[in-house]
């Protein structure tokens, strides 16, 4: 067994998410800081039918809808962009502008090291940032926001 153990706060071991602009193959990617949680969704659609010789429905999985859902604590630079790196880099635009401009992004989610110390898996793909809803309250005066990356196509696991 090799349990995935993304020790929070341990560099090189923790779970990390990197986003780059899909059309720029040389974009080194923007590391998304302060991830509170991440959910990887792989929801298969199912086609069902009945037939006279079966007492139960028959089903077959068809295409899937893939998305990443997460919550982050807002960091001013990565959320609104640094404005200094090349315009074609994700760092320049930041998460908010990548969403506002409907920019297609590539993502790479490192799940974290395995508990035996070996390198863990990385899930990657392309998609669009949606679902931003930054919120703050007087009781918890820190901006946090959900983020969804709706995946265009299939995940790649390496």
């Amino acid at each position, binding site marked *: 067994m090799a349990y995935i153990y993304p020790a929070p706060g341990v560099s090189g071991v*923790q779970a990390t998410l990197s986003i780059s602009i899909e059309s720029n193959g040389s974009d080194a990617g923007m590391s998304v800081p302060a991830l509170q949680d991440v959910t990887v969704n792989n929801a298969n659609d199912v086609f069902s039918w009945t037939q006279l010789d079966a007492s139960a429905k028959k089903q077959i999985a068809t295409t899937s809808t893939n998305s990443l859902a997460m919550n982050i604590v807002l960091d001013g630079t990565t959320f609104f962009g640094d404005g200094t790196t090349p315009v074609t880099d994700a760092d320049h635009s930041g998460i908010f502008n990548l969403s506002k401009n409907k920019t297609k992004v590539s993502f790479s989610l490192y799940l974290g090291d395995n508990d035996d110390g070996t390198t863990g898996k990385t899930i990657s793909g392309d998609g669009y940032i949606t679902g931003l809803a930054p919120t703050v309250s007087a009781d918890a005066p820190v901006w946090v926001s959900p983020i969804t990356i709706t995946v265009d196509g299939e995940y790649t696991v390496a």
Partner: protein
Amino acid sequence: MRQEVLDYIDTLSLGTYSKSTNLPYTASGVVLYVTNPKTIYVDQPNITEDPIITALDGVHLNSTVQSVIIYFSSDAKSLPANYSTLVNNLKNAKNITTVSGVHRRESDVTQSYQGDLLITEIAVRLITIT
């Protein structure tokens, strides 16, 4: 935070009360605010931190509660005329602006008797994100 509260008390009209910069320690088995009625003492701050946000990359945001307790005693048989005003003013020490980043301010007033003395304790709590 203690110094900021002491500075705030300096701005108040204390009437027959006075302020001490001593801590409210116990001397010969009696706490100073009982030995010296109508003298206001401010204790050292207590600090507690509770995590409110943790992140996968090790970011920790804490809710930090700083609290100090203001002590004084008064003659219960004949309370000074400005007692109530003084308690209200000391309670408002929670509104001091010299501590930055405060998003929640609380205060409690507790009264008890020891012999013929009315002991007043005012707890002031300032809550920040750190």
